């Protein structure tokens, strides 16, 4: 089956992004596929390339990027949710005259149309939030 994952998780001290990752790994292991992972709302905070995770904690951003590398998973970050939280790529940094970009390389900013597309092209959309 083709899955898409929608993330609403509000901060890294909560468990839901880890559950989403575990779920994603498990479904890929079983031969299913992921059409898209869509970061929405406060979950976009975990796509910042400027965050520093303490060494004894799980770096969730890195783990999502590992999934991209290993399984070519398409990960899209909601642009409206991201820009208002200071998660911007080079293009948005220029557009809004900011001094630096913060989106971690490997993630893509795009609009809600990509979520609609994910719903259309997937057999299942599973939401993880908190």
């Amino acid at each position, binding site marked *: *089956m083709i*899955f898409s994952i929608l993330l*609403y998780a509000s901060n890294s001290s909560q*468990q*839901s992004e880890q*559950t989403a990752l*575990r*779920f994603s790994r*498990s*479904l890929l*292991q*079983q031969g*299913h596929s992921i059409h898209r992972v869509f970061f929405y709302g406060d979950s976009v905070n975990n796509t910042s390339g400027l965050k520093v995770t303490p060494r004894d904690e799980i770096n969730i951003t890195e783990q999502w990027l590992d999934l991209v590398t290993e399984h070519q998973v398409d990960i899209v970050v909601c642009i409206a949710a991201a820009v208002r939280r200071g998660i911007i790529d080079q293009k948005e940094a220029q557009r809004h005259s900011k001094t630096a970009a913060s989106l971690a390389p490997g993630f893509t900013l795009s609009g809600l149309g990509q979520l609609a597309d994910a719903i259309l092209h997937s*057999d*299942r*959309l*599973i*939401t*993880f*939030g*908190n």
Partner: protein
Amino acid sequence: MITAAGHETLHIINKSPSDILLYQNCFNSLLAGDAVIFIESAVYAAIDDNFRSVLDLAANDIPFFALQNDLLARGLNNHLNLRFKAIEDNYFVELCCLYKKSVSWF
């Protein structure tokens, strides 16, 4: 072996039962053919009889599942209420395939 007939909506709940309003909203929306999976802190609902009054809001024929990994992380795996079936992550994926839709409550 479970078949695909009559499996409607899988309700995924992740908050501890102290969030009683969330549970009431979730259980009041259950229809025949639905199931509930308790994940993350919601697995506290699966221990013994502590939350029977809340759980009784769901009809008896609604299957209840609890994620084994989350039970283990909280040391609750030996205290499971008989109504619940503890399941691994891969079975969670299987349930999502089996049921036509899912709703996440958080």
